[in-house]
Structures are given as C-alpha cells and as structure tokens.
C-alpha cells in the first residue's frame, strides 16, 4: 500500500486548458509508482476567478464539488481534503461539514491567513470534533512575505498545533521550497505535526535530517506537483529504512491520522 498525502487535481474552470491531461497523467503515473490512494485537494479555481491562495467561497465550493465527484468516480484511489478560506468562518465550517459528510477525509488550509491566527481556531476545533487531520501549506523558513499568499512557516504552524493537540497537522511539502532545515528544528517537539515529504526538492541529506528530527513515526509520503521526486525519495527510503519502518512512511502513519476506514487496507 502506498498513500500520497499531498495530491492535487484540476478542473474545467481553472486557467489550464490541459487540465484533463494533467489529471490523467497523475493517475497514470500513480499506477506506475504504485500509489494506492491520492489524497488530494483543489484550491478553488487555481487562480481563474479568485487567487489560488485567497479563493472565493464560490470557487472553493466548485472545486470541492469537483473533487467529491472525482472521489466518487475513483473510489479505489482518490480521497479528498476539503479546502476552505478561514477568512469566512461560518461558511468554512459549513463547507467542512458538508464535504466530510459527503466522504472527504481531511481539511486543507493553504495561505489565506497566517497559521497562528485565531481565525483558524474554529476550523481546528471542528477538525478535532470530526477526527480529521489538517494539511497546511507551508513556506519553509519564510523570511519575508511572498506575493500572492499569506504563507506560514513551521513555527507558526507549531503555534496552532500547540493550541490544538488533538488535531494531527501535516506540514506541507517539506521539499516544496524554502529552507527545510529550520522547519525540522521547529517540529521536533510538536508530536501532533507530521512531515509531508512531498515537493520538487530531492536534496541529499533531507531525509536523514527528517528521521533525525521527528523519527519515522511522523513522516508521510507524498508528491504534490512532481511525482518523480516523490518516487525518488521513496526509492531512497527503501535504502535507508527496514521494511517495517518503510511501511509506516508508505501508508501506516497516514492511516493512523486519517479517520478509520478512510483507506481500503485500513
């Protein structure tokens, strides 16, 4: 079993004319790698009618509906995170309830509001109530604001995680840009924050540093936008880890933080 905890799909109202090809490519590559389940999110319209990281309510609902439909179309290999913009508190809570009731298994927070902001607390309380994890977009060791997003770093996510110890948080794409080393230092004492290994970065030494910082029990395998880098990390982990530990990174750690029954072998 192999679970990709960080996948995305596109839809017909995104700026990409090739959205069908990209979705098909993800599924096709997943078959080759052996990905059993893609746990995915759709960030609204991906910029078509509202910014990717500041999505409108209408775009979020459309994207979430699209993902629910995809999950129904591929019940054997697609699961969804419900994406919300916490600047709209009541609507976010309603959308989370709606999508979890419809079969999604987690919550995706991107970069509409800093992770340590109090506006995220109602979302986290609902996550605790429903027993689902939160995947949070992260800019590793953010040293300034970047245009187009109110990105958070590991320290800010850590503040949120400390306020909500019952909620498992996934620190998104450790290899997805920014300096990952300070993130690992920040995460070390935070038992409810898991490291999503996805991202285009395949730095030598990164996986060893992850194991040293948080141990094998808090590593989750994923790809995000580059499946080949996910596969490369997996191949290296096969060299680094004994089989039982490798199984934890491949899927067992994920199965432990998502709701019971979320995955076929769970």
């Amino acid at each position: 079993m192999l679970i990709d905890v960080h996948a995305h799909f596109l839809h017909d109202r995104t700026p990409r004319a090739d959205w069908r090809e990209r979705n098909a490519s993800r599924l096709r590559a997943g078959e080759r790698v052996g990905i059993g389940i893609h746990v995915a999110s759709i960030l609204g319209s991906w910029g078509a009618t509202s910014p990717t990281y500041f999505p409108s309510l209408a775009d979020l609902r459309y994207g979430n509906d699209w993902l629910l439909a995809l999950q129904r179309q591929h019940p054997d290999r697609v699961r969804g995170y419900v994406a919300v913009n916490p600047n709209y508190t009541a609507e976010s809570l309603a959308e989370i309830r709606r999508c979890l009731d419809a079969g999604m298994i987690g919550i995706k927070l991107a970069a509409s509001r800093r992770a340590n902001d109090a506006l995220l607390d109602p979302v986290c309380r609902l996550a605790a109530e429903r027993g689902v994890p939160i995947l949070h977009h992260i800019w590793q060791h953010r040293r300034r604001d970047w245009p187009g997003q109110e990105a958070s770093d590991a320290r800010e996510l850590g503040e949120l995680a400390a306020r909500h110890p019952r909620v498992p948080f996934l620190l998104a794409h450790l290899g997805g840009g920014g300096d990952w080393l300070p993130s690992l230092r920040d995460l070390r004492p935070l038992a409810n924050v898991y490291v999503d290994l996805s991202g285009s970065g395949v730095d030598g030494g990164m996986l060893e540093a992850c194991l040293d910082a948080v141990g094998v029990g808090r590593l989750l395998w994923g790809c995000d936008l580059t499946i080949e880098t996910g596969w490369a990390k997996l191949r290296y982990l096969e060299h680094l880890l004994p089989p039982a530990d490798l199984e934890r990174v491949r899927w067992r750690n994920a199965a432990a933080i998502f709701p019971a029954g979320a995955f076929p072998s769970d």
Partner: protein
Amino acid sequence: MRTDVNAFLGSYPFRRVPGTSPDAVLAAMDRVGLDEAWVTHLPGVFWRDPTEGNAWLLETARQQPRFHPVPAVHPGLADWRDTLRAAGDAGAPAVRADPTFYGIDPAGPAMRALAAACGEAGIALSLAVRFEDGRQRHPNDGAPELPAAAVRALIRSDARVRLLVTHADRPFVEEVHFGSTPEEASRLWWDICWIWGPPEDHLQTLLRTVGAARFVLGTGQPLRLPENGGAKLDLLDLPPADRTAIESGNARALAGR
C-alpha cells in the same frame, strides 16, 4: 551503460550534505545503477581560484576509472588556457565554469573567449544554472543563477563550442533552444535533473518538442538524490533507443567521442 554527467565530489559550503566522498558517490552510483559519472570538485566552485581543486579531481579520477573529471576553468585568471590544455591532456570530457560564482559576466568577453577556446580544443563546456532551489539558499549564498541569455550568447560566440547546461528547468530549455538556430541548438545538451516529470510532464513535452538527442542523464548528486534521474526516466513511455541515448549515447556525442 548509464552515465551521470552531473555529479560532484567534496563538501558543499552552505549546508551539510552526506555522501560527498569519492567512495560514497561510488556507492550511490552502485545503488542506482550508474556506471560512470562526470565529476566536479564541488568546494572549488566557491573558491577564489576554483582551479585549485583540479589537481585533486584529476588524481581522483585517475585512480577511479568510473569517474570522468570535469575540471574548472576560470577565464578571468591569467593562466586559464593552460588549465584548459591540462584538462584536455587528462582526457576530460568537459570543463566547467560557474561565472556567477566567480563574479564575472556570464556572457562577457572572458566567458566568450573560454567558449571559443573550448570549441577550438574540441572539449565541451559545462554550465550550471543553479545548485539549489533559490528559495532555500543560504542567506550568504547570493550568486545569481545563470541567465538563459548567457547560454544563447555563448552558443553563438563560437561555431564549434558544445555546451552542457545542467540544472535547467523547462522554461529555460525552451527559451534557449527556440532562441537558437537549429545548428546552434544541435551543439547544446541539457541534463534532466531539474526538469519536472508527471503530472506536469515537462520532460515528456521537451523530448517531443526539442528532441531526445539533446538530453543527457544528470543527477546533481550528492546535492540531490541520484534516484531522481531513474525515477524520471521510468515514468516515461520512452522508446528503448531514446532511453539509451539519454543514459549514455548523447553524453558520448557531447564529449565528442
């Protein structure tokens, strides 16, 4: 035969990287099924005289036939033609220059002179666009990335020069390839280490639009996991002849062999 045209030996100044010794790189090559590697002395890239790492590199490669040295040439130093000649005498498949790290104009007179001399000597010139993702570089690691305009300028500067460009992404490759004449483009080779696979399928697209003959297997190890090259190729539906070319044949053409 599988050849990695983009490998490094020695430590990196901006973060700890495991496995930088010759033995460790050989072990990594065994792990991923690489038969040989074109190797650069990594610390030298950052030295005021990067060629001071060449003697160690050449000796290391002399002792280990799976390594092929890519010595550094700094065309801003007075004796650079001697350095180039020594590299040729040692059988190097290429020399490298990292002008933005040397603090010289990547398309200026010195680099153009180096390109012309490489063309005359029949030795390829290797250029790296970057070593790390710009978003994670050390605060004191401020050398600019190699601009695509410099590669266009250098390939035009001499009709014989052959360039290997490593760590380039799809937009960079496209900008240079389609900003060059077909003859110029035929003297450019690109390593695949920074080109995305699925679902964006940048490499697959480039193999169709630019052609498999222009790409070579490069990993950027040990700064990057060498597993990435094989994973990327394994995700392609590639005719065996094209895969063989990317893994070894194109590198031989690049080296003029």
